[in-house]
Structure formats: C-alpha cells, structure tokens
C-alpha cells in the first residue's frame, strides 16, 4: 500500500470518499494538513474537499468550514429535526386547585382573602403557575387600604373547564346535591356570628378529608 502511494495518488473521486469517511468519523473538525497526514501520499485534499462540498449541496447535511478545519454538519433548515419535544401531562397540585377554585368562586379576590379561605398562606409559585397556565389573571385593585391586587379567572379558564361564564360554576347547593359536600351542615349555618363560632368548639372534628 505505502509503496503504491509513493508512485501514484488515488483518483480524485477516491480521495473524495476518503475525506468523506474521515470527516464523518472524526470527533472534531479536521484541518487540511491533518487530512494530508491521514490520506495516502500525493492527495490533493482541497480539490477533493471542493468536490465533496459540492456533492453535499442541498442535501440533509453539508460540508462546512469551521475556522481552518472542515466538518460535516446538519443543514440549518433541518435543525428542527434535532429537537424532540416531549409533552408531559401532570395533575395540578391540590394547593393550585384550591386556589383556582377560590378565585373562580370568589372573584375578584385578593391574596389575603384566598389565604383566609384556605387557612394557609398561598405560595408565590402557586399563583404564578396558575397565571402561567393563563387560568387566572390580575383584576382591578381593590379600593381598600393598601389597594391590594385582585385575581379573576380568564377566558382560557372558562374554555378549559367548559364554562360559558364563571356563574356557570355549580353553587354550594349543587355541590351538595352531587354528594360533594355531604358531611356538612347547610351553608346557611356558616359562622358569621360569634355564637355560632363558639358552638363549633363543641362540634366533633370533621372526618379526614383526604
């Protein structure tokens, strides 16, 4: 083999194949001196590269120059094939569902009100998540001291849940009729007078919700 190369370089088409294989298998772009070092003696790498480059014009990959070296790269218009989007569906967290429900039933509602109803503070992440989902948005500021922002549900929310208007949300009575509120006293007895609240001191605790 080496003796042959002393006499005659392979034909240009053969040199082209060789460069094609080298560029394909190399982990890095290859310079012309590097090509000459690897090819049989007497090869004309620039000429063969030129042919190879033309051969790949318009193909799915191209022969490109990277600095003073050469490489085979994906055609830029096909870059979209190199990303694969995977969509993962997750259940909304309980905190997020409850917050969303409160906004839907009580809108416009302030963060403080949400917290009062849930009995725990609302994390920033929960509100942000619901806003990112485009299910809640900022409403008008409440004209009370501090002018707190309020939250309301969006058009996208209603689309997602198949509601014409927020008023279509089933009321407490309907929730009860659907068996969703069964273990509770009627909503009329909701405590707004302290006497009622005191009564509750003597009411047995509710069964575990979850």
């Amino acid at each position: 083999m080496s003796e042959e190369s002393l006499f005659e370089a392979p034909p240009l088409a053969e040199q082209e194949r060789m460069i094609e294989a080298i560029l394909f298998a190399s982990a890095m772009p290859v310079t012309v001196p590097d090509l000459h070092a690897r090819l049989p003696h007497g090869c004309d790498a620039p000429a063969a590269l030129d042919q190879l480059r033309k051969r790949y014009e318009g193909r799915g990959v191209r022969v490109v120059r990277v600095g003073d070296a050469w490489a085979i790269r994906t055609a830029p218009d096909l870059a979209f094939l190199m990303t694969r989007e995977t969509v993962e569906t997750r259940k909304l967290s309980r905190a997020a569902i409850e917050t969303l429900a409160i906004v839907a039933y009580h809108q416009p509602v302030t963060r403080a009100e949400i917290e009062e109803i849930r009995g725990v503070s609302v994390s920033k992440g929960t509100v942000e998540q619901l806003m990112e989902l485009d299910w809640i948005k900022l409403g008008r500021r409440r004209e009370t001291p501090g002018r707190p922002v309020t939250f309301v549900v969006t058009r996208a929310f209603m689309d997602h849940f198949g509601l014409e208007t927020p008023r279509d949300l089933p009321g407490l009575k309907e929730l009860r009729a659907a068996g969703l509120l069964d273990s509770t006293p009627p909503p009329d007895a909701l405590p707004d007078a302290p006497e009622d609240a005191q009564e509750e001191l003597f009411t047995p605790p509710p069964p575990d919700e979850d």
Partner: protein
Amino acid sequence: MAEEDFTEGPAHDSADAVADRLAAEALVVDVDGFEGPLDLLLTLARTQKVDLRQVSVLQLARQYLAFVEQARTLRIELAADYLVMAAWLAFLKSRLLLPPDPEEEVSAEDLAAHLAFQLERLEAMRKAAARLMARDQLGRDVFVRGEPQGVERARRVTYTATLLDLMQGYARLRTRDDFRPFVMDRDGVFTLEDALERLRPLIGSAVDWTDLMAFLPDGWDADPMRRRSATASTFAATLELAKTGKLDLRQDDTFGPIRVRGRG
C-alpha cells in the same frame, strides 16, 4: 472422505507416529487448556484426520481412555467431569464391542451417533465463531459518526385539572370552613390601624372641640358589638395621636363625653 486408513492401534513406524505421541503428551500436560471433556474429545477426533461425520467413536473412546490413563500415571489431577466422561466412554466402548442387545432401548450406535453429532456441532460453532469474529467490526473496520449530535429534548409540562377537581377542591374548602377551629371573627372588629387611618385626615379639620363619637365610622353604631369595638379603637387612636401632639383631649366629668380638638 477418509484420506487414509487409520489403524486402530497405536502407530509405531513413522515420523507421524512420533509427532502424534509428542502431541498426545502435549495434550496431557496442557490439560488445563481444554474447555472440558467435549473439547478434549474434539481435539482427539481431529487426530483421526477424517470428516467428523466419519469419526470412529470406538477409536475415540480408546484415545480418550488412553489419555486419562496417561494422565493418571503422570499424576495429573483430572476434573470430575473428565472422569465421568471416561466412565461413560468405557461403558460405550464395551457396548459397541458387544453384539446389539434387542432389550436395550437406546442402541450403542445411537449413543455413538449422538456423540459424533455433538462433536460436529461444537466444531461447527467454533468455525461459526471464527467467521463471526472475522467480520468487519464496529470500531475496528467500520466507524460510527464521530461527532454525533444529540437530540435535544425539549420537555414541556402541561397541567390538567377537571371541573370535578375544581368543585371537589372548593367543596373541600367549604367543608373545612364549617368546622374550622374557633377564631375571633374579625367582621365586627374595627382595628386600631383602621381607626388611625380614619382619624388622621379628619383631625385636621376639627378646629373646635368635637365629641369622640362623631368620629365613629358610618354604619358602626347600629350593632352594639360593632359600636363598642369602633369606640374603643377610635379612643385608643386619639390617645396615640395626642401622644404625638396631633390633638388635644378633654373629659369634663366622670363618664362624661370625651371631646377632641385638632392642633392643626
């Protein structure tokens, strides 16, 4: 297919025989190099220089037993499976030499044929393995892409919730509300902060002595609970503002009306 007749006894008279004997000794010394009795049998069968289908199992049995005997005289320890094979071959040899017994279910010829088949199969697998390894191999003769471009994984998470989730969530909250532990209901409470907030802008315009009760917020004097709360916090607020010099307070007699005047 036999290229030459082979005698069943040991050869005496040729250079071949010497070579064979040397080979046999090498076999014994190299017993560790065998991959079990079948491998040894295959090596011995090759010395018969015939197609494996033509191999003389009887001769093979003799060769093997001779090998084991030799190993014994050389005090080479043979693994148990070599000895099991030796016992079995001794049994086979005797069966092959006796006239066939019609009572026997499996004839000696069948057993011999199966052994020959095993040897042929092992030989075939050896050759197949050699051909496999002679193929162009990845990383040696054939090469993969040196600069692979990984597929970027763009992961998108979508969250789902149904109307039922929403209703259940709300129902859960309302249920909890009904049973929440006692807390001071703040509906009927007018806080000190509220009172301060309310008084500050009003006090500037009160240039004359004014009854404290006039500063109560609208709608807080009907319900006694609410009136008491508003009165208390408004009074506390006036004390706070008097301390900072924003107003004067006076009460002319015990339980008399408390009056307020701004200091401008």
